[in-house]
């Protein structure tokens, strides 16, 4: 499968998609805290569907531009958003295991993304040389 050349724009789109997706868990947890079938319950449940809908639209655009393996690896960033929203919205406590886990995930995503940039630079250079010749 041929992916388009690496573009920062596609990675920014991916990050926006993952950022929006992370709010799905917040909406889901908030819905679970409301009285079943009450107005706030439907409001949060509706917000959950909206976030998933927007995410699905963005995800398809991301897949048009980025390799599935790399895009899927970036989903690991969700752990960091999970920690952030847990602390900000639900006053959850974080421990060293969560931080260590998040750091390992970040390193993994870093290896993926920068591997992609390196590989792309390599494929672009010969093309540039061909054009200059």
């Amino acid at each position, binding site marked *: *499968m*041929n992916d388009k050349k690496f573009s920062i724009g596609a990675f920014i789109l991916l990050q926006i998609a993952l950022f929006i997706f992370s709010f799905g868990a917040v909406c889901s947890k908030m819905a679970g805290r409301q009285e079943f079938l009450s107005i706030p319950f439907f409001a949060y449940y509706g917000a959950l569907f909206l976030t998933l809908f927007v995410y*699905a*639209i963005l*995800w*398809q655009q991301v*897949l*048009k531009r980025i*390799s*599935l*393996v*790399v895009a*899927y*690896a970036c989903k*690991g960033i969700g*752990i960091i958003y999970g920690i952030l929203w847990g602390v900000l919205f639900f006053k959850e406590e974080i421990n060293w*295991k*969560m931080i*260590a*886990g*998040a*750091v*390992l*995930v*970040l*390193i*993994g*995503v*870093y*290896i*993926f993304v920068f*591997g992609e940039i390196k*590989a792309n630079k390599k494929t672009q250079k010969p093309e540039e040389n061909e054009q200059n010749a």
Partner: protein
Amino acid sequence: MLKFVIIFLFSVLISSIAQIILKKSAGKKYDSVIKEYLNIRVIGAYSIFFLSTLLTMYAYKGVPLTLGTLLEAAGYIYIPILSFFILKEKITPRMVIGSLFIICGIIVYNL
């Protein structure tokens, strides 16, 4: 419990297959943006996602939540393997190392 773990892993597998179908659809050219979404592949993939959520819900009957989040990490193994065989995507040593870091991170996070 083994039965539920197998169902969970199967659920993650079909969800990964759905991602491959989405990627296949993304690689095709369509006449309009609407058709990029309203086509048999995308609709089929999201139907599989729906089936996967039902299977996961059933599997959680016998799988603890902490183990569930770990089993979900199986996607980081399924996706590269399926991408290699079906999408013919290159799997580099960097990707294998990256996947291992992500899986280890998820394990440490859930310790």
